[in-house]
């Protein structure tokens, strides 16, 4: 396992480099002089020269990339154009909120999605399945910002159960988590259902029945364990989605986070912030796939065996 981990992490390195090149290039892909994208309009020439020197903007692109990557590796993500503050500190403020929201949404949608998927698969093609799958379809097609607004209207305004916005205390998490979680639940439920049906039709399940095991135990201890393997893989792939896709939800609920920092950065043309947010998201996505592989290996001895 440690060998596998090391190899898996080493495999991530070229991917990380590729991603970092793309993110680095954003500054150069946006029309205009890269220096203009790093400073406020009307910045004095001395300041411009300082920025140019700092990013090596007069040097070949490869060198610039090297300078940038080296700084990033040392935790220097640049300075925000708008706020004049180190981007790393902005990210540091946003990240815990994103992780809290993402983690809670992930937990919520996994738990509910798996439950719904299992129930739907157990009553395949009968009314519980049809109701659940119908609900899942609706849940996955509602625009999340709209859902968020409706939830605010219903639960925060009319009923007054939860705070309307912000990130203060656990109860301010509930509505945003519900909003993101419903879409995620739909995905998890769908994958779980298919995986449960597929795993439930395998030969060994027949033999488990023939051994006289109670059906509930077979479903939950054996079939579900198999069905969870693809579910976990999908969930791991969705970590980036949870972190970044929560953009709309963070916006509607006026919550701080990586997504809203990114949007703000985009709106303000604060490219160092944009680059840093994207880099964080990319790293999250990569860690997600890594985590998915590790969990898969933990869950499936065949995968472990293939790793040696």
């Amino acid at each position, binding site marked *: 396992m440690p060998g596998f981990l090391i190899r898996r992490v080493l495999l991530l390195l070229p991917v990380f480099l590729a991603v970092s090149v793309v993110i680095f290039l954003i500054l150069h892909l946006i029309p205009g002089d890269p220096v203009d994208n790093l400073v*406020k*309009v*009307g910045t004095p020439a001395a300041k411009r020269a300082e920025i140019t020197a700092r990013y090596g903007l007069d040097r070949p692109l490869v060198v610039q990339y090297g300078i940038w990557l080296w700084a990033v590796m040392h935790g220097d993500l640049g300075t925000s154009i*708008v*706020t*004049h*503050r180190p981007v790393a500190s*902005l990210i540091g*403020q946003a990240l815990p909120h994103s992780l809290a929201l993402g983690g809670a949404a992930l937990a919520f949608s996994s738990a509910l999605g798996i439950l719904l998927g299992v129930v739907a698969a157990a009553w395949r093609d009968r009314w519980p399945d049809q109701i659940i799958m119908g609900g899942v379809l609706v849940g996955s097609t509602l625009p999340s910002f709209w859902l968020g607004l409706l939830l*605010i209207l219903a639960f*925060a*305004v009319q009923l*007054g159960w939860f*705070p*309307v*916005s*912000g*990130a203060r205390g656990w109860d301010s998490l509930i509505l945003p988590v519900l909003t993101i979680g419903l879409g995620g639940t739909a995905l998890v439920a769908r994958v779980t259902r298919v995986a449960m049906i597929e795993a439930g039709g395998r030969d060994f399940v027949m033999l488990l029945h023939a051994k006289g095991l109670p059906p509930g135990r077979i479903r939950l201890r054996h079939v579900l364990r198999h069905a969870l393997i693809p579910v976990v893989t999908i969930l791991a792939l969705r970590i980036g989605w949870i972190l970044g896709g929560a953009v709309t939800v963070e916006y509607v*609920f*006026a919550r*701080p986070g990586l997504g809203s920092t990114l949007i*703000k950065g985009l*709106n*303000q*043309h*604060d490219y160092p912030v944009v680059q840093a947010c994207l880099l964080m998201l990319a790293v999250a996505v990569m860690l997600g796939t890594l985590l998915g592989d590790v969990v898969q290996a933990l869950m499936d001895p065949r995968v472990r065996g293939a790793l040696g």
Partner: protein
Amino acid sequence: MFARIRTSILAASVSAAALMTLPAAGQEATFVLSTNEVGIPNYNPVMAVNTNTAFSMIYDTLVAQDADLSFHPFLAESWDEAPDGMSWVFHLKPGVKFHNGKPLTAAVIAKWIELFRKSENSYMVDAVDRVEAVDDLTAKFVMKHPEPNLLFNLSSSFMGVPDPDAITEMGDNYGISEAVGTGPFKLESFTLGQETVLVRNDDYAWESPLSANKGPAKLERITFREMAEDSTAFLELKSGGVDALLSVPTDYIDQIKAEPTLALFSIPGQEVYYMPINVTREPFTDIKVRQAAALAINQKEILENVFGGHGAVANNFLISALPESKIDPSLDISYDPAKANALLDEAGWKMGADGVRAKDGKPLSVALWTQSDSIFRRLTEVVQAQLKAVGIDAKITTFDSSTIRDQYKAGEQQLAVRSYFWNNADIVDWFFGGDRLGYPNISMFNDPKAEELRDKAMKGSKTQDERVQNFTAYHAYVTSQFPYAPIYQPEQNMAYNKDRLVMPDRIHGTSVTGVDMVDVSVKE
């Protein structure tokens, strides 16, 4: 036995319920900052391009201005102006200490004024040649030229007095985790774009005579939250998540009045909504087109329908409370579609079949910039429709409110919808001065006659009366050249939870500042 367990469980659940329903115990309150004060990058008053209410609570000013625009002692107990206007002597209140324990002295004042020289706010002290510390508590401002407006400047939140040494030491980091003033509250924490938490300065004993409260403030702790969305802020107030909103959009006034727990109070606004017109960009190089665009704006319709009749129309650049706003009525700009159409015809822009005017085959199509806050987007869409009514096709471009300033600096705008917040006539100089093209001079207005009048108004006024006269003339001339179209003057509406907060009887000063905040308390 069982009964006892049951009662204790009951007691526990009751106290838990009590904890849940009372978010803030003791003298703590949560305010939502005015939407146009959102996004302050730090609490450094010298470098600030925008300030918020919290500034006035961390930093005291030398002079306080009341709602009637009169000036009152604050950190300065008294002051004398030399008869020729070439020097001012300020007598500092004794015993004033910064949050870090350092005493406030005349030498500190001198150092602080020098800090302004390198900042964007240097115009505040342009007229000041130097500050001399006559003794520990006497600071003499030696002037380059007479400046009747000095007291106004010294009362503005940009001139809240910080510890200049702290700023020099901390550089760019100043005002983020630490801010050193003499105010009734200290900065506890600041999360960019989210919230600012202030705690009471227990040593405070140098309040302005305008404050009813003597000694330390009543509130122990204040949280200022920033909310970009008005609806969210309103819902938070309604559901008890916050105690007060420092600005309420007119859309919500009826709803707030309908809520039994909420109270509303209004003070005269200091804000003007207007449409800058870039005089250097086609087709607005032609004054007739500029005038037509200005006359196309139906101020009354906007006041009635966008702002629910709250506030007043704007017919020139300054708030009505300022004497300099009383220019020759014939120069005031009011809705006149017939004249607007006639002017455009005269200028050669003929109405086309699609309702858009054209000249030499070129349609009268212009860019209309606005910022992303919802009220601006809405107002801009109305302006777009009103311009369309006289045949001007305006295409809206939306910028984030914190970047639009930088965008203006490039000088490529044609029309824009924006507002300013200021209660002094020198705002005309700020927005139309020929040496500030791009931003703040969004209209790119650089007229020799205007510059002459401006110079006279800014530097040639020896007394307040003379200054009013000079500024009125300058303001009138600028308006006659149509580098802008006036739209609307709001009133400032605030709302608070009257079951929670006790507010002072009346608001001193021109907006809610630290002077008033020391009098706010929580009902026990």
